[in-house]
C-alpha cells in the first residue's frame, strides 16, 4: 500500500491506500465524505458523480491513485460562497423549491451534474438539462421536477447580484 494524497474540496487528504481502492471508496471510507453514494459501481447510474477539475466524473470508475493531482469536488464542497452548515447554494435551494428529489440518494450526483452544466452554460434549454443529467438515473422523480429545479437554478444564477465567482469555488 502506498500513500495516496488527494485534493478534496480544497483540502489535502492522505492515507495509505491499496491500488484497487476506487475514488468512491476513498471518498467515503478514507475521507469520511458520505454524500457521494454507491449505486451500481459499474459506471451507469451516476449516483457517485463528483467533479474532477470541474467535470462530472463517476468516482466508481476511477481509482483513488488516479486522482492524485486533480481537484475533486464532492457534494460536501458545494454551496454558496463561504457556506456554513445549514446554508444552501443556489442550485441546492432550487432543488428544494422544485422538490427535485424524493429519497435523496441520487441527489448529490444530480446536483454535481447540474453544477457542471451551469458552470459552462448559463442559459441551458430543457434539452441541454436533460442531456446533462442523462447519465444520472433517478428512480423516484421521473426527472420532471429535477429538470424544473435546474432550469430554476439557472434563472436564479443569472439573476443574482454576485458576479464575483462561480459557485464551484470550495468553501
Amino acid at each position, binding site marked *: 500500500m502506498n500513500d495516496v494524497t488527494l485534493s478534496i474540496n480544497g483540502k489535502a487528504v492522505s492515507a495509505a491506500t491499496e491500488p484497487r481502492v476506487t475514488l468512491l471508496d476513498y471518498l467515503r471510507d478514507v475521507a469520511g465524505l458520505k454524500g457521494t*453514494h454507491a449505486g*451500481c459501481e*459499474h459506471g451507469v447510474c451516476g449516483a457517485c458523480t463528483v467533479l474532477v477539475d470541474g467535470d462530472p466524473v463517476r468516482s466508481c470508475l476511477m481509482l483513488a491513485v488516479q486522482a492524485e493531482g486533480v481537484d475533486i469536488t464532492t457534494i460536501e464542497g458545494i454551496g454558496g460562497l463561504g457556506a456554513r452548515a445549514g446554508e444552501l447554494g443556489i442550485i441546492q435551494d432550487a432543488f428544494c423549491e422544485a422538490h427535485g*428529489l424524493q*429519497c*435523496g440518494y441520487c441527489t448529490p450526483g444530480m446536483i454535481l451534474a447540474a453544477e457542471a452544466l451551469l458552470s459552462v452554460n448559463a442559459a441551458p434549454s430543457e434539452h441541454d438539462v436533460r442531456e446533462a443529467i*442523462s447519465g444520472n438515473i433517478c*428512480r423516484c422523480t*421521473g426527472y420532471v421536477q429535477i429538470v424544473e429545479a435546474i432550469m430554476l437554478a439557472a434563472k436564479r444564477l443569472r439573476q443574482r447580484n454576485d458576479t464575483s465567482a462561480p459557485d464551484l469555488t470550495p468553501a
Partner: protein
Amino acid sequence: MSEPKYKFLSTPRRPVEDRRFVAGRGKYVADLERPDMLHVAPLASHHAAAVINSIDGSKALAMPGVIDVITGDELAGAVQPLMNGLNTPNVRRFPLAVGRVRYAGEWVCAVVAESRAIAEDALENIIVDATPQPFVLDAEQALLDSSTPVHPEHGSNLLLDRKFVWGPVDEDFAAAAHSLSFSVTWGRNSTVPIETFGVIAEWNGWDQMLDIWASIQMPKYADQIARSLGLPGNAIRVHYDVDVGGSYGVKRGIKHSVLVGYVARKLGRAVRLIEDRLENMRAGDAHGPERKFDVAVAFDDDGTVRAMKMRALDNAGAYAGRAPFQLGKPISAIVGPYKINSVAYHALSVTTNKTVQEAVRGFGQAPTNYAIETAMDRVAEYLGMDRLALRQHNLIRADQFPYLIPSGSHYDSGDYHAVIDKVLAAADYPAMLAERDRLRADGMMAGIGIAACLEPSGGNSSFEPLLNESNKTSTWMESCQVNVDALGCVTARIHTTSSGQGHETLVSTILGEVLQINPELIRITRPNSLESLPGNSPVGSRMAIMLGGAAARAGEKLKAKIMAIAAHHLAVDVDQLRYESGDVIAPDGRSLVWDDMIELAHRQYHSLPDGMDPGLASFDIMQVPTGEALPADGKVQMYPCYAFEFHLVLVSFDPIIGRPDIHSYFIGHDCGTVINPAIVSGMTYGGIAHGIGAALFEEFAYDANGQLLTQSFLDYLMPSSHEVPAINIVKHCTPSPHTVFGQKGSGESGYLGSPAAVSGAINDAVAGLGIHFEKLPIRMSAISDAIAAKSS
C-alpha cells in the same frame, strides 16, 4: 375545490426532508460506522438447481482478516424459517441455501471478514461440491405433473390455486351478444432502487439487545427478525432514523437481516451486509410479478362489458415470498373503474427456479390493470368502436358512489368522467389525434394510448385472510405521538423509516393544520422500534390516510385538552370557545394564548380541571377506515379509498428502427385532498417513469439454463431523462368520505396505468398491420421485428 379551505394543507410548501438530502446529509445505512464492524459477502450459486454435497471453507478461513464462513446447515440449526404467509410448511426458506440451491445466484454460504473486500476475496477460495438437478423456469411448465418440484418436499410447484366467482358470470356470458379472449404477459421486472439493500446488526450481550439499522420498508420487520432468531420481541431494536434510498415496495431484506442478526449474535460484533448491484439484482429476492393473464370478456353491441373471466398465473420464483399475495390485492379493483357486473378470477402462483419476488409498487395491481385495459382496447377493436367512447360508456358514474364491485369492495368516491373531460381539454385531444395522423402521413408509426385505472389505498392487508383462511388479520393500524414541551414547541414521533415519501412533511403539515401552527416549527422524530407504537410501514399507498389520519387524530386530542383547560380557566362552556392559531377565545373576548396554555399544563396543576393529567401530550393508534370485517364468501372490503387516474399518451416510432418516442404524456389524477402538492406530483411523475420502464425496457430475462441475463444496469435498462418525457398532470379532487381531510393514497400513482397506456399507444400504432404486442416489455427489437415480419 378551489376555496382556501386549508391554511397549510394542499398549499405549495417545501418538503422539510429535502434540505438534508441536497446537502448530501441524508443518513443511509451504508453511511453508518459501528465500532469493530465486520462485513459479510455471500457466495452465489452457479446452478439453477443443485444438491449441495459439501462446502469447504477451510481455505477461505485461513486467509488473514476472514472471521467465519456461515453455511445454510449452520443457520438452519439455529434460526426459524422466514415467514411465509401461506400454509405451505414444506416450502421452507432460510437466508442461505439448505441442502439444495433453487435458483442461480441463491446464496450458498457467507463469508464474514474484517472488510468487504477481504470477504469478497475469500469467496473465491470456497469449494462447493454440488450436483446439478432438473429445473423449471416457465410458469405453465411448472404446473405440469412432469415438472420437477422446486421444493420436492412440497410435492408440486403449486403455491396458490384459488378460484373466485363473483356474480352470475356464466349467465352474463350467455346473455351477451359477443365475447372474445386473449392472453397477455407482464414481464418480470422490479423497482430496482438506486440504493441497494443494506443492514447492520450489532449484538450487545450485556444488554441482551440486537440493534438493527437497515434500509427497510417492511411491515412487522422487528417481529419477523425476533421470531426467526428466537429472541424476545423486546430484544430487537430497529432504528427508524435511517434514510432509505428508494424502495417502492421491495426493501424487505428479511433474509439479509436474519443472516447478519445471527452472525452478530454469534460473534458479539457489529456486522454489516450491503448488497452490491449484482447481488441486488440476482439474489436480493426483490423481483416483481411475472404474470400471464388469460382473459375473456362478454359484451354487447353498444360496448357494454358485462362480465370478465381472468386466469392469472404468476411465476413466484424459488420461494413463496410475497408473490402469491400480489395476486390478491387486485381483487379489490378487479373491474377497474368499470361497471362490469360479474367476474371469475383464477389466481395461480407457482414456484420456479428463478429469483424470489418481493412486494413491488402496486402489489400486483399494475399488471392487472394492463390486462383490464388491454381488454377494453380489444373490445373496441372488435366492435369498431372508439376506445375512449367505449371506456366512457362503461365507467362508473359519479352518482353511483359508493359503488359495490362484484368482489366485495365499495369504491368510496370519484368522478371519472369529469377527470377524463379535463384531460381531453388540457391535451387538446382533437389536436393530438391530428398530430398522430400527421406523423403517420410522414411515414412514422404513431399511436395514442389510453388507460383508466384505480389506486386502492390504505387497506388492511385483507388479501392475506382472503387467500389464507387461517390468517385472521383485520387491522393494519398506524400510530403517531405528539408532545408539546414546556417552551410550547411541538414534536411528533412517527414509527417508520421513509424512502422518499416525505412523511415528516406529511405529519408536520397535518399537525400544523389541526393546531393552526406553522408546520415548519413542528419537529418530527423517528424513535426506534422499542420506543414506538404499533405501525405497518409505508406500504399499500397508506401513509396519507393512516399516518396522516393518526397525526390528525392525535392533534385533535391535544386540541381538545387545550380547550378543556381553557374552558375551566375561563369558566366558560367548552362549546362556546373558539380555537384560533393556538389561542382560545371566549365569546366575551377574553382569551388564553398558546403560552398561557403551556404554563397551565406544564406548571399549574392546581389550575387544571379535576382529574386531568398534567402536560400536553397525546397519541393515536388508528384503525383502517372501513376495515372492520374478515372476508366472507370470497369477498371483502379490502381498501377504504380508491384514487383514479387517466392516462393519455402519443407515441411514434420509425417502422424500421422501432424505437418509441413519447411525444406527449397527460395524466388526470384524482387522489382526493392533496396534503403536499409537490410530493404527490413527484410520486406520480416517478410512477409514470417507472411504468414506461416496465412497458418498454425493463426485464429480468433468463437464458435456457436459468442464468439471469440482465444483471447489471447495462442490460437491465431503466429510463433516463431522455426516455421520460415532460409529463402534464391534470388535477382533480373528489374527497374520500372515509378519511380525515378527504385524502386518498398516491404512492403508486402513475405506475398503475402507464404500462397499459404505453402498450396501448404502441398497439394503436401497429393496428393497421394487424399486429398485437402481447407481452411487456415491448422492446424496440420486438417492434421492428414484428413490422419486418409483416412487411416481408
